[in-house]
C-alpha cells in the first residue's frame, strides 16, 4: 500500500468505531503515554501516534512496531481527558494495517491464523474443546443434550486448552456443581469468542467469529452466559450486542458473589494473606470492583491486603490485546514486563496469595514469579480456585 491508501484504509476502519472522530480533539497532553505500561519504552506513545497521523507519517509508526506495544489495558482510554477511544480504535486500526502489510510479530500472526482455521489460537482440534470434562468427577452436561438451562458456561480457548487454565475451568465447574447451578456447555460447538482477535486488529475475523457464535447461541435456550475469561466477558457484554445478541452475560466473580450466602455455609478457614489483582477487563473496563473483594473477604481466616495500584488504576498483567503472544517481541523493548512489576508489588504489601479474576493473569503471573524469584513467597490463584479450596479445606 502507498501512504494514501494506508490513510484511506485506516480512516475507514476508524469511522466504524464509536467516538473515534475525537482523535481530532487530542490535546497532546501525554496522559496516555505517561499512563501506558509500555510508555517508557515505546517510540510512539498513543499521543505521538495521533501526532504522526496528523503529520501523515503513518508509515513511520508502523515501521517502529509501536502498534504492537499495547496490551489493551484501557488505562490510556480511561484517563484521556478528551475521551479518545485509543484502545478500541486508534491502536487496533494501526494493527490492522500492519497485518495487511504482512509484518506482524510471528507468534501473534500464528495465533491469529490458527484462530481463523481451527476456531482457537492453539491449533488444537475443536473436538478436544471439552476434553477437560473427562478429568472431573461430576457430570458436565452438554446443552445439546440437556436442553433448557439457566447458565451457559463458556470456558473459552484458554480455559479449554491451556494446561494451567483448564484447572481454573474445572474449579469453576465444580463450584457451579456444588452450588447447584443449572448449567451446561457447548462442547465442541464452542468457538473462540474473539476479543483478542479484535484488539489485535483482525476486525474481519472477529466479526466472522461473532456472527457464527451468535448463530450457535440462537440454537439453544438458556438465560445467561457465565464465563471466567474476562476478555470473552468483555466482548460478549460490549461488542456482541452491536450484532444483535441480547442475553445477560455474567463474569464468574459476579456469579460467585450472587451465591455468596450459599458459599459462606460451605467455607472452611484458610490461613492466607490475600491480595486481589483488578484485571483490566473486569475492573477498569467493566466496573466490577466490589464483588470479588466481598467474596474473598467472606472466607474465614483470610487476611485481605490491598496493593497500591488498585481498581481503575490497577497495573495490567500484560496479557491482553494479544500480549500473551507478544512476549518475545516486547522483550526487545522493555527490561521489566508489567507482570513482574505487579507481582513485586503484591509481595511488597505482604501477600502470599495473589488472587485474580482473569484467566490470562494466572499464566502471566506464574511466569513472572519465576522471573523475579518470588516463586517461594507468592502463589497465584484464580478466585474460583481460592473459593473451591475454602470449601474443600
Amino acid at each position, binding site marked *: 500500500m502507498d501512504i494514501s491508501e494506508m490513510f484511506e484504509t485506516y480512516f475507514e476502519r476508524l469511522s466504524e468505531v464509536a467516538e473515534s472522530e475525537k482523535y481530532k480533539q487530542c490535546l497532546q*497532553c501525554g496522559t496516555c503515554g505517561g499512563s501506558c505500561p509500555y510508555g517508557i519504552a515505546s517510540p510512539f*506513545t498513543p499521543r505521538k501516534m495521533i501526532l504522526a497521523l496528523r503529520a501523515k507519517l503513518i508509515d513511520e509508526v508502523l515501521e517502529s512496531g509501536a502498534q504492537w506495544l499495547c496490551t489493551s489495558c484501557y488505562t490510556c482510554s480511561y484517563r484521556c481527558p478528551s475521551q479518545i477511544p485509543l484502545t478500541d480504535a486508534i491502536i487496533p486500526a494501526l494493527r490492522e494495517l500492519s497485518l495487511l502489510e504482512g509484518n506482524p510479530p510471528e507468534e501473534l500472526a500464528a495465533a491469529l491464523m490458527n484462530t481463523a482455521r481451527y476456531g482457537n489460537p492453539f491449533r488444537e482440534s475443536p473436538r478436544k474443546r471439552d476434553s477437560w470434562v473427562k478429568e472431573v468427577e461430576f457430570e458436565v452436561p452438554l446443552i445439546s443434550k440437556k436442553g433448557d438451562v439457566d447458565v451457559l458456561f463458556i470456558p473459552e480457548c484458554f480455559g479449554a486448552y491451556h494446561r494451567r487454565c483448564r484447572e481454573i475451568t474445572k474449579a469453576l465447574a465444580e463450584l457451579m456443581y456444588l452450588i447447584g447451578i443449572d448449567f451446561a456447555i457447548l462442547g465442541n460447538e464452542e468457538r473462540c469468542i474473539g476479543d483478542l482477535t479484535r484488539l489485535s486488529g483482525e476486525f474481519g475475523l472477529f466479526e466472522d467469529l461473532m456472527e457464527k457464535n451468535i448463530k450457535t447461541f440462537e440454537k439453544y435456550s438458556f438465560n445467561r452466559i457465565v464465563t471466567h475469561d474476562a476478555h470473552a466477558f468483555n466482548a460478549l457484554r460490549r461488542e456482541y450486542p452491536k450484532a444483535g445478541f441480547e442475553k445477560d452475560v455474567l463474569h464468574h466473580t459476579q456469579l460467585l458473589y450472587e451465591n455468596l450466602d450459599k458459599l459462606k455455609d460451605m467455607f472452611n478457614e484458610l490461613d492466607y494473606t490475600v491480595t486481589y489483582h483488578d484485571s483490566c477487563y473486569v475492573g477498569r473496563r467493566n466496573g466490577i470492583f466490589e464483588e470479588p473483594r466481598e467474596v474473598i473477604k467472606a472466607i474465614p481466616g483470610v487476611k485481605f491486603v490491598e496493593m497500591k495500584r488498585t481498581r481503575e488504576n490497577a497495573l495490567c498483567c500484560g496479557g491482553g490485546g494479544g500480549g500473551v503472544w507478544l512476549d518475545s517481541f516486547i522483550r526487545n523493548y522493555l527490561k521489566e514486563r508489567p507482570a513482574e512489576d505487579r507481582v513485586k508489588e503484591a509481595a511488597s504489601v505482604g501477600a502470599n496469595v495473589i488472587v485474580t479474576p482473569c484467566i490470562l493473569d494466572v499464566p502471566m503471573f506464574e511466569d513472572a514469579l519465576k522471573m523475579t524469584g518470588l516463586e517461594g513467597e507468592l502463589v497465584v490463584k484464580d478466585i474460583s480456585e481460592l473459593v473451591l479450596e475454602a470449601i474443600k479445606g
Partner: protein
Amino acid sequence: MDEETRIGVYICHCGRNIAEKVRIDELLDFAKTLPNVTVVRDYKYMCSDPGQKLIAEDVEEKGINRVVVAACSPTLHENTFRNACRRAGLNPFLFQMANIRELDAWVTESVEDATEKAKAFLRAAVNRVALHEELEVGKTKINPNVLIVGGGIAGISAALVLAEAGVKVYLVEKEPTIGGNMAKFDKTFPTLDCAACILTPKMTAVKAHSNIELLTYSEVEQVEGYVGNFRVRIKKKPRYVKEDLCIGCYECVEDCLFAEPMFPSEFEMEIGKRKPIYIPFPQAVPLVPVIDPNTCMWLTAKKCPQYCREACEPDAIDFNMGEEYADVEVGTIIVATGYKPFDAARIPQYGFGKYENVYTSLQVERMLNSTGPTGGEVLLANGKKPERVAIVHCVGSRDENYNRYCSKVCCMYSIKLARLIKERTGAEVYNFYIDIRAAGKAYEEFYKKAMEEGVYFIRGKVAEVTDIAKSEEEKGKLVVVAEDTLLGRVRRIPVDMVVLSVGLEPQEDVDRIRNMLKLSCSADGWLLERHPKLAPVSTAAEGIFIAGCCQGPKDIPETVAQAEAAAGEALSLIERGEIELEPNISFIRRERCSGCRICIGVCPYGAISFDEEEKVAVINPALCRGCGTCVAACPSKAAQQHLFMDEEIYAEIEGVLL
C-alpha cells in the same frame, strides 16, 4: 375603536440584505391588495431617521392608525418602531413587525421562494395588526435597597460601591465570616501583593459602613416578587454567640473544655485544627466566634460545664439560640456566590488522601499564609522542608471525565505557588502543564520571572503519582509520572511534595439559588449572563445581576470589575426610580372562568390567586411576567394574554397559510 382601520405598510431593503433576495416591487404591489392597507412604501433603511419619519408623516397626513414594518427581527428594532409610532401620536402597540430578514432573506435559497415567504409574513402581520388594541404601559417603583448574596471579594466590592452611593445593602454570607476564597491566600498574582493587606481593609469597611447590613452565617431562603419589589426571607443559623455583645476577646476559645484544637478546620482546608468554639482566622469579619453544634460537648451531649460561657465577660454566649428569620424588601439583587474548589480525591491516580504529602493548591495557600497552620512555612507531613516539589496543573479541568472547561486562574496561581514555594524553601519546583495560560496584564512577565528564578516547566499532563520506587533515587519519594511531550519521552520525577492545582466548580447549592431566583445556567453549571459580550452581568431575570466566579472562573481583577459593573447596573435602575412593565401580560375573562384553578398551579411566578367570593381566578398584573403558560393551560379559554389574544394569533396563522 370606531374609526376606520387604515394600515400603513413599510418595506425595508436593509441595504442589500433584504433587497437582493426579496423582489421589493412585487411585495409592494402585493401589499396594496391586502385589506385595510391605505399606504404602502419601501425604503433603504427603515430604522434610520428618515425611515422613521415616513411613519410619522403618514400618521399625520394620511390618517394611518395601524403600522406594519417588514424588516428585520423584532428583538432588534421592535422598540425603535414602537417609539416612532408613539412620537407620531399613535399607541405603540398598534404596530406589528414582519421579519423578512433573519427568517426569510438570510435563510431562503431562491428569490422566488423568498418573495413568496415575504408575502406570507406580510399578510400575517397585516391580518394581525388590524385586531390590535391600544395598551397602556404599566410602571412600577424601584425599591432602592439591594440584596447581595455572597460575601467574597465580589460581594464585598459591589456592597462598598453601592453603600458609598448611599444605597442600603443587605449582604448575606453563608459562612461565619466574609472574605471568601481570597481570604485564604497569602499573596496574589500578578503583583505578589499580600492578599490580607488589600482585602482586610475592605472587609472592615463593610462591617463599619452604616449603609451595609451584614448577615453572616445566613442564607437566603425564599425570594418573591419581581424587579423593583423583591421580598426576601433570610435564615440566620445559630452561632450561639451574640454578635452585638461579643467583643472578640478570644477568652471563650481559650477556656473551652478542649484545651487543644483537635477538629479539622474548614477554613484551613482540613490541614489545621480548631476547637468547637472558634474564629476562622484572626482577620475574620465579624470577629465573633461560632460554636460548632457537631463537636461542642454541650450541644452534642450536654456534657460540659460550659467553660466558654463562664469565661465570657459580656455574657455573649447563648446556647438557647435557634434559627432566626429576617424578612427584607429590596429592588435589585446581586448574586456573588463564587465557586467551590474541585475535589481532588475524584482523580484517584493523583493520590490525594492516599499519600500524606499530596496537597491541594488551597492547602498550600494556607501553609504559605503566616496566620495559617504552619505559620507561613511550606512543610511536609514530617515537619521538614521539601527539597523537590511538583505542581500539577489542570486537576479536574480541561478533562471530559470531570470538567470540560479551563479553570482559567490555575495556571497563574500555579506559577505563583511555584515562586512562593521556591522563595520559602529553596526547593526545586516542577510545574507540569498542558498549556500555560497567562493572558492578562503583566501575566506573561510573571511567568517569565518564574522561569528566570529557575522554576522548571514540563509540558505534559501528569499521568499518575506513585510511591512505588523503580530506582534508588525514587526510594521514599513520591514519583510523578508524565510524558514530557516536548522531549517525547515518559519521565519519572521523584519529589517530596505534590501540589494539585484544582480547578473551579460551581457551588454545591447553585441549583437551589438558580431556581429560587429563576436564573439559567450554562451546561457546566455556571450562572448565565444575559449576553456573553454585551450584557455580562445582567441575567434573564430583570433586576438580578451576577458577579464574580458564580458566572464562571475568573481572577480577582476580573471579579472586581464585574462586581463594580453589577453595582453600576443596580444603581442605574435605582436612579431611574421606576420601570415600565411590558403590557403583554395575561388576564382572566371572568365570565368564562369555570373556577377549575388549573392556571393557579401552572403559573411559575405565583401571580394567580382565587377569588373565593366570585369563584374565579384573578391575575395580579404586577406579578404576571407574560409567559403565557396559564393561557395555554386554561380549558375554558378564560385566560388570555394581551398582544397574544386568540383572535390575533388565529388571524396571523391564517395570514401565513393562505
